């Protein structure tokens, strides 16, 4: 087997395995969500009404867009255009920040209304709604941490593209970072309808 092909394929297998573990990690939370939604359909609906559907949709569009930009960034690099690649990666990071800003805005708005874990207002609501918000914070919070980590990883990749240590001949770290980023996008693709679109 080609030695270099070997090394790249190995890295790819590794990152895909890591992606599977992340799916299972969030899966545990999806498990809790499914059970509690089954038992509290009305309360979950009520909770969902409290969330801002416009901001949720905006965040979905932002993440889809930065999935596009990171894919374009890798494609640009593979076509021998590192400068263009760097712009796309930078755009991805900017979008990611945008996502976090919207999220922070949403969360602080909820805190203002007394809808945070263990708050008296929240505890006075039906129990199912308390669970809804508990899961909301837990799942979007864990997702947000992954976005933050993604920003860190992509920033390192951006520096490497600019410095020339990631090149068209050796794109593997950028490719793997992109795969991680798409995972982050995919998780949100499921979080969005589960929290914002309950009818």
């Amino acid at each position, binding site marked *: 087997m080609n030695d270099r092909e070997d090394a790249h394929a190995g890295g790819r297998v590794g990152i895909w395995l890591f992606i599977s*573990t992340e799916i299972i990690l969030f899966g545990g939370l999806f498990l809790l969500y499914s059970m509690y939604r089954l038992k509290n359909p009305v309360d979950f609906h009520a909770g969902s009404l409290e969330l801002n559907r416009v901001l949720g949709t905006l965040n979905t569009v932002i993440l889809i867009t930065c999935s596009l930009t990171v894919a374009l960034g890798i494609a640009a690099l593979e076509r021998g255009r590192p400068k263009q690649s760097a712009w796309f990666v930078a755009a991805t990071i900017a979008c990611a920040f945008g996502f976090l800003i919207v999220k922070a805005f949403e969360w602080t708005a909820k805190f203002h209304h007394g809808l945070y874990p263990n708050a008296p207002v929240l505890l006075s609501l039906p129990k199912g709604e308390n669970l809804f918000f508990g899961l909301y914070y837990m799942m979007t919070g864990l997702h947000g941490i992954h976005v933050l980590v993604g920003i860190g990883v992509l920033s390192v990749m951006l520096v490497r593209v600019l410095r020339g240590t990631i090149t068209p001949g050796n794109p593997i770290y950028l490719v793997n970072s992109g795969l991680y980023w798409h995972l982050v996008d995919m998780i949100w693709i499921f979080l969005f309808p589960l929290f914002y679109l309950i009818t």
Partner: protein
Amino acid sequence: MPEQVTHTGEYVPYFLHKGKYPGALSWLLATDHKRIGLLYMVCIATFFSTAVVIGVIMRINMLPGHAILTPQQYNAAFTLHGIIMVFLVVIPAVPTIFGNFFLPILIGGRDMIFPRLNLFTWYLFVFGAVLAMVSVFFGGGAVDTGWTFYVPFSLKTTVNVPLAVFAVFILGMSSILTGINIVTTVHQLRAPGMGFFKMPLSVWGFYATAWVQILATPIIGITMLLVVMERLFGIGVFDPSKGGDPLLYQHLFWIYSHPAVYIMILPAMGVISDIFPVFSRKNIYGYKMIAFSSLAIASVGSLVWGHHMYVSGQSDTAGIIFSFLTFLVAVPSAIKVFNWLATMYKGSIQVEPPFLYALSFIFLFSIGGLTGLFLGALSPNVQLHNTYFVVGHFHYVIFGGMGFGLAAAIHYWFPKMTGKMYNKPTSVVAWLIVFVGFNIFYFPMFILGWEGMPRRYCDYLPQFTTLHQVASIGSFIMVAGLVLVAINLARGLVAGAKAEANPWGGATLEWTLPSPPGHEDFEEIPVITRGPYEFDKKETGV
């Protein structure tokens, strides 16, 4: 470029090799899979000894008139004993010590595919252990919930649960990354000619285990995080007063922790599968069945977790489903036992220490496995749940199974790793003492549990006294045997006779290297033309 290895001994053993870094750094920054295996071994030996000492203290406490611990201390003792044994010893031991050291060699590769990630997993492991230790002494003190951290008690008890469960989270990360390294290495770095069905069965064991590490461990990760969030922020997912369901904690916990026991046993079974052919001078019986049974145990074993919860409030329907699946998972294990026995049948048996450990493994694991069927059946479980029967069962499968398998691996691979041979007569004596002590210690627990002695209790009704005394005495005998094992191995390390490259006459690739190997395992990657247990076709060298 390091010295090339030759069989005349003109080379530098891997533990003396001078690389980029001097002194201690050459170990702390090692990426050589053999050195990382040793790093893990030193830590795990330390943790094991600590947990054994805690266990001895517990057994002294259970002797009449010897209550040296307060009830609170006893709770902390069995919790710590469990956490250390489960997360710091039994789950990591065989994969991180012997998987790291031998997997690349067994498949004819140069190292694990991600050597720096490998070193990182060791740092995570040590970090997790440090956090667990710190949690004993700070922030409210040692956890008293049992290693299972059941809610609601773990949410209310004032001891340092958050730090302890966060330590488990970190250890889980280490395990996941090790699993990723192993699966990728097996897929990418096998030598030319080594198809999946020419790999030694120990590699199949590591491979199947790694899949469980990858697919199950994230669940314990998220569960531990949820406990931390519950304690810090009162989210309510496990709190009935806020709508939560405590039984969902148990579901999440056991979804990992049951497959975890297969993480414990599969590598050990893999090593046993390597050992029997060598000491029977005969090819393994039913290679493919053993390989597939490893995968079957890994997959079916991930479907049975509800058998821990028959009497916790789980529905009867679910109980029936889980019980049925539990009985199913016994089948692939039985297949392995049958194949090992068939391997020995009409073989030319060499009675050496690894073989003795492997043989006693079958005996002890079978008792453990069969008693698991008692527990897996719904009606007996009502009587036996949370009694000493359970304690006896899991010590037979984990200690009698994985523990003896680990000892077999140590005694089998010791000459390869150290270049020395231990004193064999002494090791046989030590084995016998451990074996006898083990059975005196743990067998009475089945009777105690059957008669109603609850587990995790520091005191008991008078009718249980005699058996507790017997068990405690058995534990002292067993520990004396363990000490003798350790002393014998230490003496072998320091002053043992020089070991040849292939003292047991094995046909797998590690025996083609000198004892101990040099920094680079193979001068040249071998081309594989035969199976791992073909003794009649074996040529000298590869």
